[in-house]
C-alpha cells in the first residue's frame, strides 16, 4: 500500500473514537441538550478526520473538492438541525438538566 494510503488510514482510524464517543454520549447523557452537544460535536470532528483521511487516500483534486463539499454541507446541515431541535425543545418548555 502506498504511503498516502497508510496516512489516510491513520486519519480514518482516528475518526472512529469520535463517532464512538458521540454515540455513547447520545445514549448516556442526561437530557436532550447534552445529547445534541455530544452528537454534533463528535460527529463534526469525526467526519472531518474521516474526510481528511479519504482526501489523502484519493489524491485527486476532483475527489478532494467533492469530499470538502460533503464535509461543509454536513457541518451546515448538522448545526442548523441541532439548533432547530434545541430551539423547539426550549419553546416546549423543556428545562436543561442541572447537576443536583
Amino acid at each position: 500500500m502506498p504511503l498516502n494510503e497508510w496516512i489516510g488510514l491513520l486519519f480514518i482510524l482516528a475518526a472512529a473514537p469520535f463517532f464512538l464517543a458521540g454515540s455513547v454520549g447520545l445514549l448516556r447523557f442526561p437530557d436532550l441538550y447534552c445529547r445534541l452537544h455530544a452528537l454534533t460535536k463528535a460527529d463534526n470532528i469525526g467526519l472531518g478526520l474521516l474526510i481528511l483521511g479519504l482526501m489523502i487516500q484519493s489524491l485527486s483534486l476532483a475527489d478532494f473538492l467533492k469530499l470538502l463539499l460533503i464535509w461543509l454541507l454536513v457541518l451546515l446541515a448538522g448545526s442548523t438541525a441541532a439548533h432547530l431541535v434545541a430551539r423547539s425543545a426550549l419553546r416546549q418548555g423543556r428545562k436543561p438538566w442541572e447537576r443536583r
Partner: protein
Amino acid sequence: MISALSLFDLVLIILLLWLAWHLLSARDLFRATVLFITYGLLMSLAWVRLKAPDVALAEAAIGAGITGALVLVALGRFGEAESDEAEPGSLWLRGLVASAALGLFALLGWAVWSLPTEMAGLKAQVFERMGESGVENPVTGVLLNFRAWDTLLEMAVLFLAVLGAWSLGEAEEPSMPAPGESLLALVRLLIPLIVLVSGYLLWLGETAPGGAFQGGAVLASGFVLLLLAGVRPIPSLMGWPLRAALGSGFALFLVVAVAVTGGSRMLLEYPPGWEKGLILLIEGVLTLAIAVTLGVLFAGGRPPASPGAGKRGEKR
C-alpha cells in the same frame, strides 16, 4: 476465515433485520418513522455492497430522504390519533395469520433457493447492444431505451399519485412555528447547490450512476426545504404552470413514443442517431416533473384556491 467485508455485510444484514422488526413492532409512530429513515439509509448501503450504485442513490434520495419527509409530514398532520391500540385478536386467529405468513416466507425462500446461483439474465444482450442505446451507462440504457416502457408507466403512476392526493383535499398551511433565520440562511445557501447537484446527477446519468429519478429527488428536497422554511410559492405559478409541470414528464414521454413510431419502427424505438438527444430531452423534462410531483406530494394536496383565483371572468 471471514474477510472484513463479509463481516461488514453480516453486521449490515443483522442490523437491517433488527431495524425492520423494531420499526414494524414500534407502538410509537414517531419512533417507527425515525427507524424507517434509518432503514432506508442502511438499505442504500446494502445496495452499494450489491454493486448497484444506481439503486443505492435512488434508495437514499427517494426511499430514505423524500419518503421519510413524506411520512414525517403525514405524522405531523395526523398526529398520534390514528395509533390506537389495535385489538390483538384471538389466539387461533393470530396463529392462523402467523402460519400463513410463515408459509409464504418458506415458499419465497424456496423460490430464491432454487434459482441458479449464477444467473446471466439479460446482461449479455444489454452489453452487446449498448452501442445502439445512445448512452454509456447500461442502467440508463435499459431504463430510457431498451425498457423505456417501464419508465413511461412509472411516470403515469407518479401522475396518478398526484391526482389521488389532489382529489382528497387542499394542502393545509403548515401549523409549524416560524422557522427562524437560521433555517432560512441554510436554505439560501443550499437551493443553488441543490439545483446544481440535480443537474449534475441528470447529466451524469449518461455515463455513470445518476439520472432523472435521482436528480429529481434532489431537486424535490429543495422544494421540501422551501416549504419547511415557510417560503410560500408564487401564486401565479400555482395555476396552470404547476399543472403543466406535473404532467410534462408523462406527456412528453408519450409524445416522443408516438412521434418516433412510423415505417418499421415500433412505439418508443428511437431513430438511429437520435437516441442520445431524445434520452437527454426526456430525462431533463422528467427530472423537473419528478421534482415537482414529489414536492406537491409533500405539500399534501392541491394548492388552496386563493380568493379571486379561478374567478377571473366574474365581476365582483
